[in-house]
């Protein structure tokens, strides 16, 4: 009987979020060159000398796993194994990193220069039961380590390597999207600073998957270097955590399941930007202006951004999480005993759900340690008052929200000993591109007003500021999401009976599980957490089997309702579109532009005031939800994928979202 506390980590809720250290401070006072050429001698896994990049490649190519897959592919395709082997070697060549310390030093030098201009501070968490870097260093020495940062900006991985270099920790190898490789010179530079490149999609390509997974596992087993990747898969354009992708996580866990390593440690890392470099770029992208292809010249054009102030960055290194302790009693490793370990197999259901759970857990750990600025509170209030509000009222409400956020466990970076008016005004100043103050009234800017613009253009400009503003509000959603869903559930439920509220809550969780980090299967726990938080803040009481809103809770609940309003409306618009407009031959590709123009029409006609529905992110998430719930299905016709709509089901989902239909009926209708 092994104890469950064995390798357990400290409860993240108990952690004392103490001080941060500004790593730029030292850079401002000493030579950058000296910093770039200083002695760098990190501690490595079990004191090994890492093997050379070439050696690594030949280990991968000669591995039993790859040889097995090469033979398999050769038999299936009729090609000679030599040719397949050659293909594998080409794939590996395209993929592999070539970490060079000289490149790292080059980056250390140039990034220092850039960081000092762009940011006021780069803060890294300092003490917490002994510093994080001692914990991390120890973890790196004893186990293969996987670094899992949140992903909001291109900066993220350069920043990570930069910090690790600063603290004299082993530099990671980083899984990067192939799109970077398009940037000729930069791509190679990144490769030499430890990036390895993976194609965005390689669905059925067995050989590619084998090369890729074996490459990662070989590095992990041999403790070549910490492995870094982004659980969210891609940068979140909305500043809201994306639901985790579990492919790579599966790969890094496998050596533990198969007993090839004793343990693997996962390190959640939260990187919070006060202002994101890509801020308005993201908003445009979400509105349908395609993302510029990564190119070196594009990056150079981006130099303009060097003249702006992006505030500070907070990086929080969480406690390393032991997979061994997480997997205890959840994954039976004996299941791996009956097939040779080099033969690739689909993970069992049990493993799959463990990996998913872990992924959600890590993303939640990332969320919990995201540092929130006062502006995030203000943006949340402004979005509920699009027509603008008095500065004094904004200040008052921001302070109120600060209290609520703190009682829900938000990690707020509110400057001590500064008058609140000053906090508010300096936030407004930093974000003057988004917000303007005139005559004591604060409102969002509506884009450039000069010149003649068509109504569509005006709408588009307005949408850019709303979406930019929403990207700040989104940063605090994880704090409020459970109470907010509960608030909507209380509002929509036919009675205050707890089980009815729960049904409603559970429906909303299902609906929004692509939108927010809500681990499937955690609904009961989430509901309890939501109740606990609302009861704690005095907003609701639970009387016998009823959930009752208190008098002073009205304002809280109305704020929380408001927080989700745009999501509820957005999803309803998508439903409405499917019921009213969608034709039978609607293809997956046409879907986004079609919904967008449908929404534009509604807004221009004055029937809709929700701009966020124009975000392709929300549209995709809504579609994913409808597909998941079976109201819409994909049909493959020729080489096109079309969407088949069950109008009855969509309609009932729409009504349930709007609170016009009790939850259970909706479920029945779906069935």
């Amino acid at each position: 009987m092994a104890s469950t506390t064995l390798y357990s980590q400290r409860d993240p809720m108990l952690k004392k979020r103490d001080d941060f250290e500004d790593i730029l401070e030292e850079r401002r006072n000493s030579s950058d060159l000296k910093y770039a050429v200083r002695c760098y001698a990190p501690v490595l896994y079990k004191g090994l000398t890492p093997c050379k990049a070439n050696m690594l490649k030949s280990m991968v190519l000669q591995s039993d796993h790859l040889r097995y897959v090469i033979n398999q592919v050769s038999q299936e395709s009729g090609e000679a194994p030599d040719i397949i082997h050659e293909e594998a070697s080409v794939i590996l060549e395209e993929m592999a990193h070539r970490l060079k310390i000289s490149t790292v030093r080059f980056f250390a030098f140039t990034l220092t220069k850039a960081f000092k201009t762009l940011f006021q501070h780069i803060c890294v968490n300092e003490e917490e039961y002994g510093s994080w870097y001692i914990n991390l260093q120890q973890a790196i020495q004893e186990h293969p380590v996987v670094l899992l940062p949140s992903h909001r900006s291109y900066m993220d991985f350069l920043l990570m390597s930069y910090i690790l270099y600063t603290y004299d920790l082993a530099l990671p190898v980083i899984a990067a999207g192939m799109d970077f490789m398009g940037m000729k010179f930069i791509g190679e530079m990144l490769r030499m600073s430890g990036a390895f490149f993976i194609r965005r999609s390689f669905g059925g390509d067995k050989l590619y998957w084998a090369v890729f997974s074996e490459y990662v596992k070989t590095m992990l087993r041999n403790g070549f270097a910490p492995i870094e990747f982004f659980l969210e898969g891609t940068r979140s354009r909305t500043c809201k955590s994306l639901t985790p992708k579990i492919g790579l996580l599966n790969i890094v866990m496998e050596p533990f399941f198969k007993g090839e390593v004793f343990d693997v440690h996962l390190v959640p890392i939260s990187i919070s930007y006060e202002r994101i470099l890509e801020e308005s770029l993201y908003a445009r992208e979400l509105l349908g202006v395609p993302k510029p292809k990564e190119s070196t010249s594009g990056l150079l054009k981006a130099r303009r951004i060097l003249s702006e102030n992006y505030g500070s960055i907070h990086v929080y290194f969480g406690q390393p999480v032991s997979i061994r302790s997480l997997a205890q009693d959840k994954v039976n490793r004996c299941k791996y005993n009956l097939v040779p370990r080099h033969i690739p197999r689909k993970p069992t259901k049990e493993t799959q759900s463990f990996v998913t759970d872990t992924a959600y857990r890590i993303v939640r750990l990332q969320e919990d340690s995201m540092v929130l600025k006062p502006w995030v509170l203000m943006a949340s209030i402004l979005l509920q008052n699009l027509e603008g509000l008095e500065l004094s009222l904004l200040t008052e409400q921001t302070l109120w929200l600060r209290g609520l956020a703190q009682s829900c466990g938000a990690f707020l970076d509110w400057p001590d000993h500064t008058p609140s008016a000053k906090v508010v005004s300096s936030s407004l100043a930093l974000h003057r591109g988004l917000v303007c103050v005139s005559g004591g009234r604060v409102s969002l800017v509506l884009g450039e007003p000069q010149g003649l613009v068509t109504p569509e253009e005006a709408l588009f400009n307005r949408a850019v500021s709303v979406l930019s503003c929403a990207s700040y509000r989104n940063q605090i959603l994880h704090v409020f999401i459970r109470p907010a869903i509960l608030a909507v559930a209380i509002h929509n439920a036919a009675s205050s009976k707890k089980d009815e509220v729960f049904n409603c809550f559970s429906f909303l969780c299902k609906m929004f599980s692509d939108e927010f980090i809500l681990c499937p299967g955690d609904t009961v726990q989430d509901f309890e957490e939501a109740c606990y938080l609302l009861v704690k803040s005095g907003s609701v009481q639970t009387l016998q089997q009823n959930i009752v809103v208190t008098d002073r809770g009205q304002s809280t609940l109305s704020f929380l309702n408001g927080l989700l309003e745009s999501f509820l409306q957005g999803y309803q618009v998508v439903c409405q579109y499917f019921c009213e407009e969608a034709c039978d031959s609607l293809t997956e590709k046409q879907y986004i532009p079609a919904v967008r123009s449908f929404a534009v029409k509604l807004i221009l006609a004055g029937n809709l005031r929700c701009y966020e529905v124009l975000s392709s992110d929300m549209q995709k998430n809504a579609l994913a939800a409808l597909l998941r719930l079976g109201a819409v299905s994909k049909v493959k016709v020729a080489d096109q994928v079309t969407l088949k709509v069950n109008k009855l089901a969509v309609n009932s989902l729409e009504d349930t979202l709007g609170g016009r239909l009790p939850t259970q009926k909706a479920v029945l209708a779906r069935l």
Partner: protein
Amino acid sequence: MFVCYGVLVMLHPNIGLLLNGFNEHLLPTRQEIMKWNGWGYSDSKFLFNKKGQAEFTGKRYRLSGMILPSLQDWFENTFGASVKQHKSPATPSLNAGALPPANLNEAFLQDLTATGIPFSHEADDRVFRAHGHCLHEIFALREGRGFQRVPDMVTWPNCHNDVVKIVELACKHNVCVIPYGGGTSVTGALECPPEEMRCIVSLDTSQMNRILWIDEKNLVARIEAGIIGQDLERLLNEGGYCTGHEPDSMEFSSLGGWVATRASGMKKNVYGNIEDLVVHIKVVTPRGVMEKSCQGPRMSTGPDVHHFILGSEGTLGVVTEVTMKIRPIPEYRKYGSVVFPNFEAGVACLREVAKQRCAPASIRLMDNEQFQFGHALKPQVSSIFTSFVEGLKKFYITKFKGFDPHQLCVATLLFEGDRERVLQHEKQVYDIAAKFGGLAAGEDNGQRGYILTFVIAYLRDLGLDYYVVAESFETSVPWDRVLDLCRNVKERIIRECKERGVQFQPLTSCRVTQTYDAGACVYFYFAFNYRGLADPVHTYEQVEHAARDEILANGGSLSHHHGVGKLRKEWMKESISDVGLGMLRSVKEYVDPDNIFGNRNLL
């Protein structure tokens, strides 16, 4: 290249075993010459003498009477123990008052008396047969605590027919019978179930110790199952034969015990494990006597009923007579050893040897910890010359060859056969070893490795005198998982110890003791200084439990040859599946519906 083998031809058939061979341990009161609360003979034990030097007492072993100058340093450094300051001596004798009173079945007693089969309900006879050699059992005895439940009486049948009578009476009067052979179990198999309300009779087979006949035409012998390993070997040797079955416990374990636990011998590569050696088994069950009607070397007559008995751990009946293969004593025997730069290279070499199917009679690979331990047991060097040669060897291996003394490990070898072939075989094995960076390291080192096998069990008693608990456990595992399993299990032990408040770094060590076509047997030693722990035995058991979980998770088996007993029962279901367990249960239900053989092992 040093040639450190081939100089001395060792022809001691039972190196490390009894040098004076008379039958004292066959008397019903064998406890008089054996420790009542530790391993082996009362006169043989390790101790730190008045000068503070370690010595091994007695005259029975090659190491007996020798001074072991480096043992104390090794012991203190490895465990953080202190020979002078921290002693934890055993209570000198058993407190008979702590013993539960004998719960006798008068009717059974009466009928048994009528048969004339000897029996006893003396306290020391009962306690002696109430345990095996698990740590918790020995620990309890040393503390003078005894056991919650012990046999109520002991009986000594003299032959098969006596056993038939006893079992019949047991069925008639519903008493519980627990067969007792050599008492060397390390699985809790001899423990009496505390919930057993019936009278428990310990059936001691030690008087059934004869070789009934030897058939030289077919090279088999009919042997009574109570015979102890070393006696069997000695008696056969007199006629120029041997069985070649040499489990590490062969000084004390019995033939019946081997059958009941599926024992494995050191030289199984030449002679096979017990299941390969057995030709015929006679077993007395509550349903009657089971035996096959002929002694054909192999049969296709449905599932082999012998395999219900092999490994049945005393739950179905008493094995009374066995026909076993015998072989002429080999003409020539030669030890050897190979030093490898690290454990990985050693395992790779053993794997290759197994692949080429050229394993010597025995090949064992010790890890670095055991290598160092072996060195700590070196007796005082007798001449300056030996010491000089030793030093030169050490210099050659560590300096010239660049072996790291904290990485290198040693394989010990034993070759048997006719001289010509042994030498040829030896060359083949050393050639393979050389491919894996192995250096021949002499006969002495090899021989010392095997001597160690017999005295290592005595060392636990020394540790227990100074706050050190120790135990061993084993598994079998496919070749490709050997290294991963060894590493993970050791690491798990170290972590579990830390988590459970063990104040000192534990010793974890392993060796690969047997090679097979498809895998190997791995043997772990594990010991720690328990100073500062409230309940060291419990802590020890938790750690061992975790280690077994780790073994199973890494593709190892529940046991290679120790068996299941009560210690590993809980894993049986996942080991052999529900249906598998059901099969075993249904056999038990048919053969012994009233659970006369109620030791509750295995199922």
